[in-house]
């Protein structure tokens, strides 16, 4: 369970998160929608401790993320995160990209890491690309590789930050299909996305962020069908 309690975060004068309260249960798929600059990415990077917070508390399976005694490197093994930029490691083949962290962080044997990498690459539909360098992959393939790379760490949670936003429109579908697959397998996921149709389909709950505040959270039928927050109504009207 990821528990976010009254989290505040500023960059200099700018308060980006203004007291966020949110709990994500095991097995849940939560999507976060909202305008650009509303603090969605910041929240994800706070959850895995890449960013410090100013107030409040985030716990992952009971571990307080921003506690001094928390081993963040260890915590991050539980939290797979995939960003908008693909972040393929260009000097490594697809297989090596996926094997790197299991080898160096989890200290797996080569055989063990390779078996896991091949399994996860098959999972995201890249079984035939293992020996290729990322520069040979399309954006959609690179993004699926990044997903496989995160999955190879056997994380308990997956965080996706607008993973289709940097893709050509015709490549969005294959990545969303991968996310749908993970959701159907019961992976606990937080997806920041602009794909409303996707959000409606896969989410257990959808949260709407506006200017650092979680303005509304509800199951998709409710949030898209009968939005209450005026800003959400405006946002939905603009995106349709």
């Amino acid at each position, binding site marked *: 369970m990821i528990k976010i309690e009254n989290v505040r975060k500023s960059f200099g004068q700018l308060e980006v998160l203004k007291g966020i309260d949110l709990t994500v249960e095991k097995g849940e798929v939560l999507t976060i929608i909202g305008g650009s600059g509303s603090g969605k990415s910041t929240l994800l990077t706070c959850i895995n401790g*890449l960013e410090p917070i100013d107030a409040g508390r985030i716990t992952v399976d009971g571990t307080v993320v921003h506690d001094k005694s928390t081993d963040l490197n*260890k915590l991050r*093994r539980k939290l797979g995160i995939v960003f908008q930029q693909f972040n393929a490691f260009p000097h*490594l083949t697809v297989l090596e990209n996926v094997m*790197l962290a299991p080898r160096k*962080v989890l200290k797996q044997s080569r055989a063990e890491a390779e078996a896991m990498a091949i399994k996860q690459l098959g999972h995201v539909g890249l079984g035939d690309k293992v020996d290729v*360098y990322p520069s040979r992959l399309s954006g959609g393939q690179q993004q699926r590789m990044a997903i496989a790379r995160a999955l190879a760490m056997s994380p308990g949670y997956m965080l996706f930050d607008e993973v289709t936003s940097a893709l050509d429109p015709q490549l969005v579908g294959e990545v969303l299909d991968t996310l749908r697959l993970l959701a159907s397998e019961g992976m606990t996921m937080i997806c920041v996305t602009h794909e409303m149709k996707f959000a409606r389909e896969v989410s257990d709950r959808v949260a709407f962020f506006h200017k650092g505040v979680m303005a509304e959270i509800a199951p998709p039928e409710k949030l898209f069908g009968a939005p209450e927050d005026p800003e959400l109504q405006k946002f939905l009207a603009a995106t349709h």
Partner: protein
Amino acid sequence: MFNYTFQWNQALARLPQMLDGALVTMQIAILSMAIGVLLAILLTGCRLSGIRVLQGFAVTWVEIARNTPALFQIYMAHFGVASFGIHFSPFTSLLIGITFNNAGYLAENFRGALKAISDTQSRAGRSLGMTPVQAFRYIVLPQMLRIAYLPMTNQMVWAILMTSLGVTVGMNSDLYGVTQDLNALTFRTFELFAIAAVIFYVITKVIGLGARLLATRLFRY
């Protein structure tokens, strides 16, 4: 006026000695590069560490290496430290001086190379649970070395040429030192130094070619 008679045979008879010297020159250059690259990586680590003392140390090193004559650096490694009772052989002093210079220049090249690598690369590594050092070692460093590969090759050529400064600290077993001693012995000045120049030229060309061949093996992406 122009009454110098060339006597190439006399000079060429000394070629074996000069080639022995060339081996010493290459030995110094290779050692000074190997150690220089490692030190430059450490200096780069110091700069990235965010720790003031380490950053200051690295910056000072780089500034001195790049903004003072290499001759001065080699001199200091010999006569400079001798003032404090530390006595190195000419070989060691020359090696230290060139290594110091290499490390400084390479560290600066590395800094430039790092600018071409997005922060999101090491962030991706950190997100996978790597420590900052692991992310640097396995993700940033290999990319950095590739970007800095050509400047590294140039520095290797410089290292070869810098060995000629060894004579100022009494070095006489390298190519330049051997040539100078032979000159004092035979006075075939032009011939000897012309041959030495050709050997220097061939060595640096071979290094350039070898580096390019190695690159095709090292960098497949």
